[in-house]
């Protein structure tokens, strides 16, 4: 289903939609191309699937192209992704040649003559070779954390990236040392998606019933894959400390770990730590379980995201959007989503997490206020409409890269 701007108005207000329209008017007639590496699956495709139609509704035509590549190319870019994230991956001349060759064959097939070319992530970064000196502006959008990349891989990629007009990162700590303007555009959630839309009480009740989770006690929840860096065992330890004084249940909801040996080991450790406690529910949900996740979050009293390391950690915004008090690790993009003690709680330890679980269960008015503040924070900063607005501003910025206050004249109304 394609959502229209009108669908977002009840959440963000008429003023926000009008602001998007004002920006859209100034980009009409520009030829914009965006390129990534996949049409389905993954966060980038998900966002583009929603943004391209909304841009069109604003009168901004964005053509979305996807690069092609063989298995060898995507194997190299997968390793490149890991290396850029700081994992050691041996790279040799052949790997770079596979990347260059895939870039050349895409360049031969693609028409990249546009006013603005907006490239996502490392895979299509080499398309900058198509840039003509006198034509078009090029943007590179990086969705990954480049704070500690493997040096040789980054050096190779930087050879391309440094030729762009601007780069975009999701958080200041993810940025690279580049001599070009770098914008910060945080990711977003879609309030109309199954994971975030409003649910009726009946829908919520049915999910809890189906998953056999009694609602006789306040529920503490963490939604995340079974990964050491999400510290699910630490969550159980914090829960046990809180459980001494507060009767409550814990739900750990994550994806099934069948194909992932590391995940399976973490899951086994989680079951061992849970030790058959009937108040601890460990759920392995399929990737399509969006309504289930939504319902579990809505039925929870407190939501945790006790990550030890994190990318942006958008599950925090998903929880805040449901007006839930969130206790989360002060890592990655989480500190952009939570202002400590205003819109949620930031912790560093198991004991601190346990302390705040008890505090929030025993001070429901404060917990409610945190949740409400959190929802307002997400409304202003982490919904899709803000993300779209930032992209439109970024496109406009390319013509004014040296200015910091840019005044636009009135657009002369067009004849009906």
């Amino acid at each position: 289903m394609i959502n229209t701007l009108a669908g977002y108005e009840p959440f963000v207000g008429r003023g926000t939609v009008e602001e998007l329209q004002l920006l859209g008017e100034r980009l009409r007639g520009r030829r914009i191309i965006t390129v990534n590496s996949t049409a389905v699956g993954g966060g980038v495709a998900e966002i583009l699937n929603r943004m391209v139609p909304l841009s069109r509704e604003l009168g901004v035509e964005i053509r979305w192209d996807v690069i092609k590549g063989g298995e060898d190319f995507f194997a190299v870019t997968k390793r490149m992704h890991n290396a850029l994230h700081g994992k050691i991956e041996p790279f040799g001349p052949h790997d770079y040649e596979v990347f260059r060759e895939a870039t050349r064959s895409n360049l031969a097939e693609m028409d990249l003559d546009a006013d603005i070319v907006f490239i996502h992530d490392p895979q299509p970064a080499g398309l900058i070779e198509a840039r003509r000196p006198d034509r078009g502006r090029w943007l590179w959008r990086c969705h990954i954390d480049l704070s500690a990349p493997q040096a040789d891989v980054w050096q190779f990629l930087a050879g391309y990236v440094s030729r762009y007009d601007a780069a975009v990162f999701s958080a200041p700590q993810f940025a690279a040392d580049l001599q070009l303007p770098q914008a910060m555009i945080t990711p977003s959630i879609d309030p109309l998606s199954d994971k975030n839309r409003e649910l009726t009480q009946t829908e919520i009740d049915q999910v809890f019933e189906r998953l056999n989770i009694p609602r006789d006690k306040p529920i503490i929840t963490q939604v995340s894959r079974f990964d050491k860096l999400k510290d699910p065992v630490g969550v159980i330890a914090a829960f046990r400390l809180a459980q001494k004084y507060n009767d409550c249940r814990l739900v750990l909801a994550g994806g099934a770990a069948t194909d992932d040996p590391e995940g399976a080991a973490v899951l086994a450790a989680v079951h061992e730590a849970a030790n058959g406690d009937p108040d601890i529910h460990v759920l392995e949900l399929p990737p399509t379980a969006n309504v289930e996740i939504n319902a579990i979050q809505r039925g929870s009293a407190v939501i945790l995201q006790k990550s030890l390391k994190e990318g942006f950690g958008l599950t925090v915004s998903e929880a805040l959007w449901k007006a839930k008090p969130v206790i989360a690790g002060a890592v990655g993009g989480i500190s952009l989503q939570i202002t400590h003690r205003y819109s949620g709680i930031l912790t560093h330890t198991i004991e601190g997490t346990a302390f705040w679980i008890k505090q929030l269960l025993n001070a429901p008015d404060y917990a409610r206020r945190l949740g409400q503040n959190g929802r307002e924070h997400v409304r202003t900063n982490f919904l899709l409409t803000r993300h779209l607005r930032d992209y439109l501003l970024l496109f406009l910025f390319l013509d004014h890269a040296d200015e910091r206050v840019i005044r636009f004249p009135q657009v002369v109304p067009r004849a009906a």
Partner: protein
Amino acid sequence: MGDPQGDHAFQFFSSLDLTLLTNRRARDLAELLEHLRVVPGSVIYFHTHHFLVQHQYLSPEPPNDFAYWVTNVLQEDWLGEQLAAIDLIQFRSIRALRDRIIEVIENYLNQRKELRVAPEGEEFHFRESVSFIVPTTHVAHNLAEFADCMEQIGFGSLSFHFFSSRLRLERGEDDFSDWCRTLGEQDLARTIARLDPYTYTLDGLRREVVRLVRRRLREIEA
């Protein structure tokens, strides 16, 4: 401003901000100070104003990024309080505001020898605002229309007329008071000018201005 269109018309503008990264970061107060001395004004504006636009809280929000970081990350409560207490409304330029922030930190450092260091990953990252100022479709020709427009405009408009215009464009006063004066509404202008916009949420400010204008309209009708 108001950018009058014809007779006393008030043109509402909107300020929409893009955030840029600067590659500058501080781990302690000495580094913070070092950067504060040389960063562009758009950096100071960002860190003293983005909370106002980004945090539409139901309860009072932290006043600026410097105070928040110093209090919550460095846990220097005394200095954090001093930075939070900087009365933004009294500054007519970013330059003067920057000088004051620097002065407060310098005074504190003069009395301390040891510096606390931010934990890894919680450094202060300097960012800057690029403000796009766009005329909106809202124009008011009288107080009644003005109140109607105020109820409809986005946060970008409220932010522009209360903050950007006064401080970034150095107009000295908020646009609404200025416009009320051109209508001969001296008392209303004075009342609006006396509001400290830094102690309201944007929505709270909107409600307060609408309340004042509607009250004045009732007086005129009576």
